[in-house]
């Protein structure tokens, strides 16, 4: 299961160290942003200013950037999809597959609109035997609001690490990707080389910055600040292989409980199909990745493109050099040959060469 990085990387090696990672389970995230605060406190990062109304969202801390290394994204889907609404209503009207009893407020002829689910009424039905209400269907018909604590993915094939020209970005003995702030000269190449939009350059400071997976804490045997602070264990930290196993179990459990859309983002797939070769910080999601601002598939753009692009570019350059030589030799031969301009050209050549 463990995927390892290419040996040509600049890496720190330690005999006892193993790959450590984050597993972020979005189904238990409550959007409290404690991880953001803990991250800023431990890493001494400045506040970005709390502001409501960024893109008409309740998310008041913006996005991952040079001074926000953990960010709880609010995925606000104001309306359920028409399909989800229709499905839920049909299931309720049809008796919910034999599980939902007659709920007066949900379109059983009581006069309310089919889409107006009354959760109070649903809850009142709890007098009936527990489990009689299909809560999943009721929730599916409501507005959806999901939280996701986003962070650097610590990719196996890390685009930023491949791009970095100074060796400021390195792979640690925990197979995480860390930026050495005293080496970075702010060239900005890692910023577009990250397929997840994580690395950013601080406009005041000039250097790039990103999550270190609390490298300093790990070296001292402490878990990262965000995982430590998470009140619901939405962020879990541990040895990578153990985390993947736990996460897969959690997905199986959610599938069994009627959430077939739960899936792992960045782990569990075939190594060849995996995002960036496997993410050191992976996620349990319930929506398509784009809802969270994540790409559905990604790899290190450098590893993906550098060989074909360099071959095409360098080949074209050599062709251009050869073409220039051919143009000159052709012109020289023509001027030496017969033709109406022959004598004029010869005079011109003589006057230039002296």
């Amino acid at each position: 299961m463990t995927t390892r990085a290419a040996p040509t990387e600049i890496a720190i090696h330690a005999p006892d160290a193993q790959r450590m990672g984050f597993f972020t389970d979005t189904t238990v995230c409550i959007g409290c942003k404690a991880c953001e605060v803990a991250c800023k406190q431990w890493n001494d990062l400045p506040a970005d200013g709390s502001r409501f109304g960024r893109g008409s969202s309740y998310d008041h801390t913006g996005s991952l950037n040079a001074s926000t290394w953990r960010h709880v994204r609010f995925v606000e889907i104001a309306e359920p999809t028409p399909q989800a609404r229709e499905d839920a209503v049909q299931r309720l009207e049809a008796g919910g597959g034999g599980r939902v009893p007659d709920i007066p407020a949900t379109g059983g002829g009581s006069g309310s609109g089919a889409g107006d689910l009354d959760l109070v009424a649903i809850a009142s039905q709890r007098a009936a035997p527990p489990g009689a209400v299909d809560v999943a269907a009721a929730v599916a018909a409501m507005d959806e609001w999901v939280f996701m604590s986003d962070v650097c993915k610590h990719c196996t094939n890390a685009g930023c690490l491949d791009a970095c020209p100074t060796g400021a970005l390195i792979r640690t003995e925990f197979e995480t990707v860390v930026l050495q702030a005293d080496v970075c000269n702010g060239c900005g190449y890692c910023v577009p080389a990250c397929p997840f939009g994580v690395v950013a350059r601080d406009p005041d400071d000039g250097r790039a910055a990103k999550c270190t997976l609390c490298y300093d804490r790990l070296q001292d045997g402490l878990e990262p600040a965000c995982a430590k602070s998470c009140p619901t264990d939405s962020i879990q930290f541990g040895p990578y292989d153990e985390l993947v196993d736990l996460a897969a179990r959690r997905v199986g459990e959610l599938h069994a409980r009627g959430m077939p859309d739960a899936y792992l983002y960045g782990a569990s797939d075939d190594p060849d199909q995996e995002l960036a070769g496997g993410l050191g910080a992976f996620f349990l999601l319930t929506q398509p990745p784009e809802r969270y601002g994540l790409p559905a598939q990604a790899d290190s753009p450098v590893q993906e493109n550098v060989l074909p692009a360099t071959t095409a570019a360098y080949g074209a350059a050599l062709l251009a050099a050869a073409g220039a030589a051919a143009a000159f030799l052709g012109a020289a031969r023509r001027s030496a040959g017969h033709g109406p301009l022959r004598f004029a050209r010869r005079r011109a050549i003589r006057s230039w060469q002296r």
Partner: protein
Amino acid sequence: MSEHDAHDATPALGTHGGPAGWQRAHPDAPVALQRNRWQDAAWSFLYKDDTRYAPAPADMEAVAQASRRMRAGEPGAVHGPVINAPVWTWEVPLYFWFGGVATGAWFVSVACDLAGDHRSAAIARRVSLVAVAPSPVLLIADLGRPGRFLNMLRIFKPRSPMNLGAWALVGFSGLAAAAVGADLLGRPRAARAIGGSNVVVGSYLGSYTGVLLATTAVPLWARSRLFLGPIFVCTAAATGAAATRLTLVAAGLPHGHPTRTALGTIETGAMAGELILSSLNERRLGRAGLSLEHGTPGRLFRAAKWGVRIGLGLRLLRAPLGPRAHDVASLCYLGAGLAFRYAWVGAGQVSARDDETVARMARGAVTFDDRLTGGPRGRRLASIARAPRGAGRLAARYPELVRRASLRAERLLGMSGTVAGRRGTGAPPTHR
């Protein structure tokens, strides 16, 4: 003694209240309250028996299938931003242009030598050196921490086009200066030999800028990966030939001289190739190519294309218009090359903000032929600890020496930044 006094106030690290309290009490002292192997992470509400958080071993195939299903097909609503836009400013496209002119002029100088016109070759070498001179300045000015520019040469990293490009710039400038110096010292054969070998470095300098853009997550650049390099090489050859041609004309190269004819051919061929490659690329880019049409980059792109067309037209009509028309065409090419560079870099910034295209590219749905392929995964091996020995050990000290020199240079230049040392992530505090 009160309960408060009985509280254990031993600090987590170092000596309580002492100077440099962040230091360990003794080397390898454990952190207070630390549990080995992150045992504190294993405690959880959720791990308790009665919560059914993750009880049974999972069916890995079903888990993998769920992941595949949710990441396949057409993307739904995209809540961006997905990637960060490049932070490069006006210096970078200008550097691309100067680097291109230098490369093109160098190609011309070598071709001149081959054709036997050594006087023109010497002038072309000087044009190239003058063009490459502002490049390091521009490159340094674009850095977030210009005082640390030396860190680019801290390591040799073939995997990173920017690192190789920095080395190529250094190598090219050095060899170009050596060749011009040999010219000035009256050693034409040495100049020719150096000039010939510099083609190897110059070919990279003139083409890696396209690779640099192609190796990013920006859809427009990444999906043009096979075209960007050749397009940039065409621009480089045309602008280099145009700059050399104008200089030679000013130096008195007579009309009808084969060098002048050849330079005209190179300009025309390279710019025509540029137009053709651009059109082909735009046609296959599909959605990702939209960012080449809108806003300032779009206007620059159109202006550049018209510059090329006007130049080609003037060259076709040079017989009735006279030799001056061809000089105007050369100027058109130089301007068009500059506009192309700004258009490509600017359009990449637009493209990075086009969340829909980024999402579609990730699902392999932007171009019809450029499907996402796996990385070179065969090369991945288990990392093993390797301690450098002998000469390798000396070489391993080089990056550290450069790093220290960079920090010192930054301090001397007073460019340590406004908030240096603000982060607690390893930067030593620097004082103005």
